[in-house]
């Protein structure tokens, strides 16, 4: 086999594939040399990557703003809480995803027939609703609110998160390119037109919302052992809605990699700033969210084509200038 020919025909694949493979190998071997602190940091980063990519998959493309990632994440955490003594960890992970999927399906069927504003209202309240329901359930079952989660080794959690992250990113990458993904985009562009083009808009919205919620449920289960102690207030904390939104908006929802970039940046910032400025940093994040929406509506990913254009322009000018010079010389 001719290597140069292989490289030239599959140039694009290699250009994307090789770095991804290197990153994957780096991540898969990380716990061997990374140390506890950085393994945990990486677990948190992967968690936020999954949360924000799956949020952006639905809300970014359809324009229906879900304020409920925390609700689905919390459902995952509590699935672990309720089932930890009866089932093994790897079995609970998909169950958590399934519960979130079902919850989102129900919510979607009630609200996604209506205008986006009702959906936003309902999902915002869903976080409080779930936390109160779980509190009631917990006090009925155990006679008290809050419970301990049996800790698991950091490596187990890391690898569970890594596998889930890879699976989620692959799934969402293909969903975005599929008929379903295009239907979502058409809904975001102009819902009425999409309807007329034959897209069953309600079905697409409900299904994709439920899929995005399922990923959030998976992550919830995996993060539960990290928390050691959970109660409804911790599991359904509003930050788990806020952070994925901030990350997606910052990174840019139009591109697949946008939310990933946002998640990496803010997960790192959160982890490092929380210790030093426990309250100021959330205040700062709120300010950043507003500034980004105001001045950078397409996020970091929106800057890339602009920069390319400008760079391209400069290059073209240089080339032209060079040609002109040559002409002058001859």
């Amino acid at each position, binding site marked *: 086999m001719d290597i140069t020919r292989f490289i030239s025909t599959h140039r694009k694949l290699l250009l994307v594939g090789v770095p991804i493979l290197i990153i994957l190998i780096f991540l898969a071997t990380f716990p061997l040399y990374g140390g506890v602190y950085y393994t945990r940091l990486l677990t948190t980063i992967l968690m936020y990557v999954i949360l924000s990519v799956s949020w952006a998959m639905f809300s970014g493309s359809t*324009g229906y*703003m879900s*304020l409920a990632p925390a609700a689905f994440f919390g459902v995952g955490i509590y699935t672990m809480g309720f089932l930890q003594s009866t089932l093994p960890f790897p079995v609970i992970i998909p169950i958590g995803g399934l519960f979130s999927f079902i919850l989102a399906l129900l919510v979607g069927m*009630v*609200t996604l027939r*209506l205008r*986006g*504003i*009702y959906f*936003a*209202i*309902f999902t*915002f*309240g869903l976080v*409080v*609703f779930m936390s*109160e*329901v779980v*509190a*009631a359930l917990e*006090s009925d079952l155990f006679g008290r609110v809050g419970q301990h989660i049996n800790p698991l080794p950091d490596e187990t959690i890391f690898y569970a998160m890594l596998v889930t992250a890879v699976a989620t990113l692959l799934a969402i990458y293909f969903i975005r390119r599929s008929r379903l993904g295009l239907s979502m985009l058409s809904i975001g562009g102009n819902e009425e037109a999409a309807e007329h083009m034959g897209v069953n808009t309600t079905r697409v919205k409900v299904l994709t919302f439920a899929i995005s919620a399922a990923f959030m449920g998976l992550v919830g289960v995996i993060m539960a052992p990290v928390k050691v102690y959970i109660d409804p207030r911790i599991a359904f904390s*509003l930050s788990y*809605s*806020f952070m994925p*939104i*901030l990350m997606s*908006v910052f990174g840019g929802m139009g591109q697949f990699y946008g939310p990933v970039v946002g998640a990496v940046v803010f997960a790192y910032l959160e982890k490092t700033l929380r210790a030093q400025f426990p*309250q*100021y940093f*959330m*205040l700062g*994040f*709120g*300010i*950043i*969210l*507003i500034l980004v*929406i*105001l001045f950078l*509506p397409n996020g970091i990913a929106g800057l890339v084509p602009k920069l390319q254009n400008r760079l391209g322009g400069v290059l073209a000018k240089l080339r032209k200038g060079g040609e002109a010079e040559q002409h002058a010389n001859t």
Partner: protein
Amino acid sequence: MSELPRLIVSGILSGSIYGLLAMGLTLQYGVARVLNIAHGEFVMVGAVLTYTLYTSFGINPLVAAAIIGPLLFGLGFLLQITLFRGLKAWAPSQAAFEGNALLAAFGLLYIISYIALLEFGAFPRRYDWLNYVVEFAGMSLRFNRIVAFAVAVVIGVAVYLFLTRSRLGRAIRATAEDPPTAGLMGVNINMVLALCFGLGALLAGVAGSLISMLIPVSTTLGFRNTVIALIVVVLGGLGSVPGSFIAGIIIGIVSSLVTSFWQPVYVVPVYFGILMVLLLARPAGILGKK
């Protein structure tokens, strides 16, 4: 069941405050098209400031409300002419604007609640003002709740009259109906939007002052009140001002009944049950237009 009349009256008393804060939210969404999920944070700011003014300076909570209201009006006015007007100018479509405004309000929620946390601390505090029982038609009720109810009703009626009878109120309703046409008729749209947003913040602040008279004040007050206001607003019909006041009173009664016949922890699930049935059966709410 002899408890029932007292529970209903007590529900109406607290429901009037819900009505007030829902009126603010519905004005902001109905006219400025901003679903302000930071609305409850304005309530919390009202409550915290009233507490501070009363305990540090001995200012009567009702006087404090009269100071805080205009202050928050100014804040809301400024937010509309800077933040939300900027978002509107750059948004490619109305739907995109509503989405971005919602996310910006989420940022606002964090900013306000964390500033409050830094200044006020995390612990709930309370004060006593007119906190004694009076007999009314055979029922014993706390006097401060009656005062809060009276204030809420007076302000609610005043806002309603302002919207229906005054020239400016007519301009506001015209803008809610059809902004471009209202603009052609000579309405200063930007001024009207800012006015509505400010008025919404004012109503939230006053509701906060009234709430602070009744329950312990804490910085976590906001989130719950936003959720209550959202449910009330949908029940009353998005954009309908009288509808939201009536719905506020209904929700107040429901809350009072659930709390005493069942458990306080079921209040929010019951609200959600109502909301779900409503969205399935009549999304326009009780007084909204189809």
